[in-house]
């Protein structure tokens, strides 16, 4: 492709129109074709299924609106909807407050023990939810150390507090997502321009005032976008409502669907599909708010060609509060769950924490896990699938994020296509992709590539948030300078945008890799004998009551993932340092 003329049009007008082959336009068209092929079939198959009759022999045929009628006339719908909203709002607030404060403390203040916050985050990002939820439920449960002490004191069966409640759900979900919030907001805070904060401080503003009127407001698009993500994830959440809510008799929308699915064997997916289509509309509305927000995002870009490593706030005599918070996070999100798992892994059956149980300690669970080729295969499959999905996803997200953040032709369409997978609850996406893979004449179904493709689609929106937010923070003057110097868009992306974006790209890759490695809902239906993955294996262990083996395998897996995550973490930090130079 020729370059000279394009470089100059690029500078003259941000959206070069016509005049020969436009690299950006070709890129947009290619991306559009790929995204349509990945994202549209599951949606179409869901819509068809939601208006189709499911026959007794499990074939699908005939048009019906019965599934929708059932959805809207379900008397429990409003109670479940209310529970879903309460659960999602409060767990989002908890995750944002806790994770966000932590991120700010670690990135922008002189709080100590920062390493612990990263260690906690890295390990927790690679640890499947099932492992966390079961560990917390053990700790907070009726036989956990707190309730156990209470019951020993009172001699009654009745526990002091019941984790199987709405507040138990909110606490568990909130802490489950706080590491994600920390990871995402820490990169935002790290890259924010400190000039305005310093100006505020010099004009006499206190720390809190500066944080409120400058730091938070600068990061507002990132915070709101993140809140939306966590909220949507909580609406779609399955593990916590299933493991915590169901025993406590608290239904949310997803457990309603779960209950409707389990009414018949095999499940009638028509109702679940109708539910998903309704949710698709709800989320589309939420996303339109986000779109409006992003429209004004230009005025928030603070990264320019200038040196931008922000200086840190001195917390002075309040420093101990920051220290305490970092330590609290380290304890709650890392140490206690790990200790609980370690305790369980050494015992032949689940026992509460008592001195006399120590006599039963053995390494048998670890021996079983390490000797079994089954667990090795689980691990290998998971690493391959997660790495493939992260790589494919972040490549798509890089180009899509740039085109849409820079408002190039087709940017909005690409953004919407790449964001669409968010509307899928995981279990529904698994079902939809299963139907798609069975319908295409390629031997994908049952292989690990089925999982890799589904994960790529599922986590594309997450990768996109990294690249999109990253591009927004790079002032376009740098790209314009490249254009003036005669670079083609591809050269400019490669030589200017990609290096500047490398922390975001690496963080995004790391994030998608880690979150894909613990995906359960999609994998539950797509994984097969040749493609079992860790999260599914752990879910089976939990369901089967193999708690000791689950704990042992969980600890070994968490160790492996921590090694992988640390490699990428240091790569990311090196990238940052290189940039700072």
């Amino acid at each position, binding site marked *: 492709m020729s370059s000279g003329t394009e470089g100059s049009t690029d500078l003259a007008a941000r959206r070069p129109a016509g005049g020969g082959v436009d690299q950006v336009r070709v890129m947009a068209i290619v991306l559009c074709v790929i995204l349509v092929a990945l994202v549209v079939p599951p949606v179409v198959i869901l819509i068809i299924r939601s208006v189709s009759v499911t026959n007794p022999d499990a074939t699908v045929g005939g048009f019906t609106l019965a599934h929708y009628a059932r959805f809207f006339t379900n008397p429990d719908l409003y109670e479940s909807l209310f529970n879903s909203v309460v659960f999602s709002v409060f767990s989002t607030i908890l995750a944002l407050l806790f994770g966000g404060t932590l991120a700010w403390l670690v990135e922008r203040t002189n709080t100590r023990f920062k390493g612990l916050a990263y260690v906690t985050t890295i390990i927790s990002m690679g640890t499947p939810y099932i492992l966390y939820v079961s560990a917390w439920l053990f700790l907070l449960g009726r*036989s956990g150390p707190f309730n156990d002490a209470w019951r020993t004191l009172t001699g009654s069966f009745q526990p002091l507090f019941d984790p199987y409640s709405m507040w138990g759900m909110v606490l568990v979900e909130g802490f489950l997502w706080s590491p994600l919030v920390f990871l995402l907001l820490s990169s935002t805070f790290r890259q924010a321009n400190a000039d305005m904060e310093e100006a505020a401080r010099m004009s006499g503003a206190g720390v809190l005032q500066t944080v409120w009127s400058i730091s938070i407001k600068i990061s507002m698009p990132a915070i709101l976008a993140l809140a939306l993500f966590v909220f949507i994830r909580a609406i779609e959440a399955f593990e916590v409502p299933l493991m915590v809510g169901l025993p406590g008799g608290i239904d949310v929308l997803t457990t309603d669907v779960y209950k409707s699915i389990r009414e*018949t064997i095999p499940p009638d997916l028509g109702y679940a599909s109708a539910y998903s289509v309704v949710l698709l509309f709800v989320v589309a509305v939420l996303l339109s708010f986000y779109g409006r927000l992003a429209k004004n995002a230009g005025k928030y870009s603070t990264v320019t060609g200038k040196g931008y490593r922000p200086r840190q706030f001195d917390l002075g005599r309040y420093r101990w509060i920051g220290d305490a918070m970092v330590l609290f996070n380290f304890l709650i999100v890392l140490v206690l769950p790990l200790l609980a798992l370690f305790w369980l892994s050494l015992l032949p059956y*689940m*026992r509460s924490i008592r001195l006399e149980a120590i006599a039963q300690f053995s390494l048998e669970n670890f021996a079983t896990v390490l000797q079994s080729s089954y667990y090795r295969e689980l691990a290998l499959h998971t690493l391959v699938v997660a790495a493939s999905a992260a790589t494919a996803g972040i490549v798509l997200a890089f180009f899509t994020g740039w085109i849409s953040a820079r408002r190039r032709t087709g940017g909005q369409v690409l953004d919407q296509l790449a964001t669409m997978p968010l509307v899928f609850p995981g279990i529904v996406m698994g079902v939809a992709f299963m139907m798609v893979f*069975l319908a295409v004449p390629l031997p994908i179904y*049952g292989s690990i590539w089925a999982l890799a493709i589904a994960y790529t689609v599922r986590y594309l929106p997450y990768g996109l948030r990294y690249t999109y937010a990253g591009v927004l923070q790079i002032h376009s003057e740098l790209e314009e300078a490249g254009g003036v110097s005669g670079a083609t868009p591809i050269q400019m992306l490669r030589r200017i945008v990609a290096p500047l974006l490398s922390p975001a790209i690496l963080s995004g890759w790391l994030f998608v890799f880690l979150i894909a490695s613990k995906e359960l809902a999609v994998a539950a239906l797509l994984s097969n*004998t040749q493609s079992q993955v860790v999260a599914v294996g752990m879910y089976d262990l939990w*369901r089967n009551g193999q708690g000791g083996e689950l704990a042992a395998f969980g600890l070994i897996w968490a160790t492996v993932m921590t090694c992988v995550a640390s490699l990428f973490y240091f790569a990311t930090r090196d990238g940052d340092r290189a940039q700072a130079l």
Partner: protein
Amino acid sequence: MDRRQFSLGMGALAATGLGIPGLRAHAASPELIAAAEAEGQVVWYTTMIVDQAVRPLVAAFEERYPNITVEFSRAGSDETALKIINEGQADRMLGDVFDGVSTFASVMAAGFVEPYSPDSASDYSAQFKDPEGHWHALNFYFLTAVHNTDLLSAEDAPQTYQDLLDERWRGNMVWPVDATPVGAPGLIGNILLTMGEEDGMAYLQQLAGQGIVNMAASQRAVLDRVILGDFPIGLMCFNHHVAISQAQGAPIDWIRMEPVMASASLLGLVRNGPNPNAGRLLVDFILSREGQEVLASTGYLPTHPEVAALNPDLLATGPQPFDTTFMAPDIVEQNLADWVRITDELFL
């Protein structure tokens, strides 16, 4: 609805309990073995607990037939049925053999079960096999109430279904809510079959007021909650799981709450599976005396008439006999949807 008493030829079983090994050693036909070895592998969609039952069976099969590897995938009854039906409808069957308490009704209705009556199962009692060979029972289950012996002594523990209505147990019982006859719906069915429609529903209404804690997990996981001490009482737990845990020293015991629910796990061949001969060989092996002895050695209760259970106390016809309600496959097929609906309406 009719109620069937579960009366196996357990007397005969007890008599042959110390059966002479090797006397009736089973051997599959050389043609089948050759054809199976040519296929080289077999895929088993199972609902059984992996560490307790699947791994020992697979190891024994692979030792017996070293040229054939077994790939297995463990899932619940609903997911297993869904996988087979979807693969079948797409004409892309990947599984060869499957099992489960409630997988058969839907998979058979969809036409994806291949009838097969292996020689090894010719002596099985009539209630343990389908006359047309669609399924054979590979092990059976007794499900009943259990109690944590640290929290609750045998004297204090409830003994009858009426005892469960005691104020003391409100909020202190837990059960598995899987939509299968071995989950909460099985207890509903047991009550309705035993007490009759009207009295049964009246009882269930009262039971629903007891706030039984629902767990979307296996009976094994529910039992672990009781062992842990989260709840003093568990319902719908397998008595052989209790015995396995007792052997490890766990503070747990099972209650002869009559009639105890009895059920069987069924084994069958997938139609148009990729390895039909190896599939036949695996079914043949699991049902054979050799396979059933492996299963019995894990503490499971074998269906083979000549294989004795490791712990005869667990059997309805053991030293301390107990009354049962047998959930025969046809009873389950007719009533399961109703039982699941009642579970959902009253208890979930």
